[in-house]
């Protein structure tokens, strides 16, 4: 990861979403991107140039564009048509992004397109986030990593975020994933946690 002082940046063509530039690199704002917040509050997984990434919940392609700056190929999955239009525009200018319009809860929709990846990144607003991660972990290589951005309020608004967090950790370890790190993304994002796992 590239830091300039206290600021996380990514090397690439700027102007994707009016992000600030610093020393010719794009500033990666932790308040806008949960992945950047993870690198600020925890360790995360170092993104490196040979990496292939499956990105679930690509939305408008903001964070995707930063991930693509660091890695070899990003398979970006998004379901809704409106953000997909923005994602396609980002992908047109970044040749290592493969945009896929599909439902992350149904991996069979994109199974014929996606190769085995080193990193599975998931940021979806769904109630069964742990199950989605487990179902998609078939795409992970042995020893590959999972970064799950847990939106506790999407799982169940009536439950305490801490309870949802613990339940999710249990579900992931029951499914055979090794949990490396789990942190809350305060003060950057409320009621959001990041969970980093390895597939043994």
């Amino acid at each position, binding site marked *: 990861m590239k830091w300039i002082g206290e600021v996380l940046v990514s090397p690439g063509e700027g102007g994707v979403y009016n992000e600030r530039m610093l020393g010719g690199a794009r500033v990666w704002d932790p308040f806008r991107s949960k992945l950047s917040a993870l690198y600020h509050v925890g360790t995360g997984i170092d993104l490196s140039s040979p990496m292939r990434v499956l990105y679930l919940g690509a939305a408008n392609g903001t964070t995707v564009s930063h991930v693509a700056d660091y890695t070899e190929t990003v398979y970006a999955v998004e379901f809704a048509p409106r953000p997909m239009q923005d994602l396609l525009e980002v992908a047109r200018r970044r040749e290592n992004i*493969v945009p896929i319009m599909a439902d992350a809860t149904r991996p*069979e929709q994109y199974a014929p397109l996606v190769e085995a990846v080193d990193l599975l990144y998931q940021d979806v607003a769904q109630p069964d986030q742990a199950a989605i991660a487990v179902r998609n972990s078939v795409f992970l290589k042995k020893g590959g990593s999972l970064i799950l951005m847990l939106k506790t309020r999407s799982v169940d608004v009536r439950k305490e975020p801490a309870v949802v967090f613990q339940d999710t950790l249990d579900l992931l370890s029951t499914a055979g994933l090794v949990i490396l790190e789990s942190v809350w993304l305060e003060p950057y994002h409320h009621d959001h946690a990041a969970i980093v796992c390895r597939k043994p």
Partner: protein
Amino acid sequence: MPGYWFGDVEAGSCTPFLGDAREIAGRVRTIRTNMGSFVPLDWELAVSCGFCHDRAEYLKKLREVCFAAAERDVREQYAGKDTELLHMVRTLDEMDTVINLLSERIMEWYQIRQPTFSRKYRRTPSHLMVRKIREKSRGALGNVAGQIETLSAARTDLAKEVSSRANRVLPNTSALIGGLVAARLMAQAGGLSQLSRLPASAIQVLGAKTALFAHIRTHTPSPKHGVIFQHRRVHNAPRAVRGRVSRVLAGKLAIAARLDHYRGVADPGFIERAQAKIDAAGMEDKS
């Protein structure tokens, strides 16, 4: 037999798909993958398959296929005829808000310029006031008044378009309550498929959110009607039967919305029977 986007792979042998990106995208959609025994693809298979020469070409072709598929899917999602109508209705409602706000504002402004002017004891409709202000005022005030009139004209055109589009997209619902109100109902529900899934009781109070939640929280009387109040048979009904009319109307609307969503064409028999039922509910001396 595992099928991947570039071809079918079978026990060592591989048949590449031929055709351009759009054709391949079409074929990818038909592949049924069994996730139980699924093994993620290895891009080098595509090379040994004769589909491409190196990784750069592999990614280039894959991206072409994915773009074609995504553009096709986005188009299909928007092809649902209700999507544009939704934006038309919302634009219409926002134009109303803007026109009202601006009209109120310039009337206040006009009163400052004309100390003898008061709106008390006058029955001048707002659009006639705006015209008067335009004719009598110079400078920015007259200019803004003229702009409000232009905006009002655009609003009238849009309302007509909403109405005629609703007659096509929501034929049964529009036949019962008119295109404009039908479109508003659809917009409140968030789309035709959402509207068709609502129970009649929800359709009856759609658009009366504040009153409904006040009822639930503090037990004020429940709302009798929401958006459907705008329909003449509800707001012209005598107070005593208004609740009954809106309840019967909502019941028929729920059926009409389902006909519109799943069948998409007008059902004259249903419309006739429903109209009779709704009219009967409006008779005051029903014993």
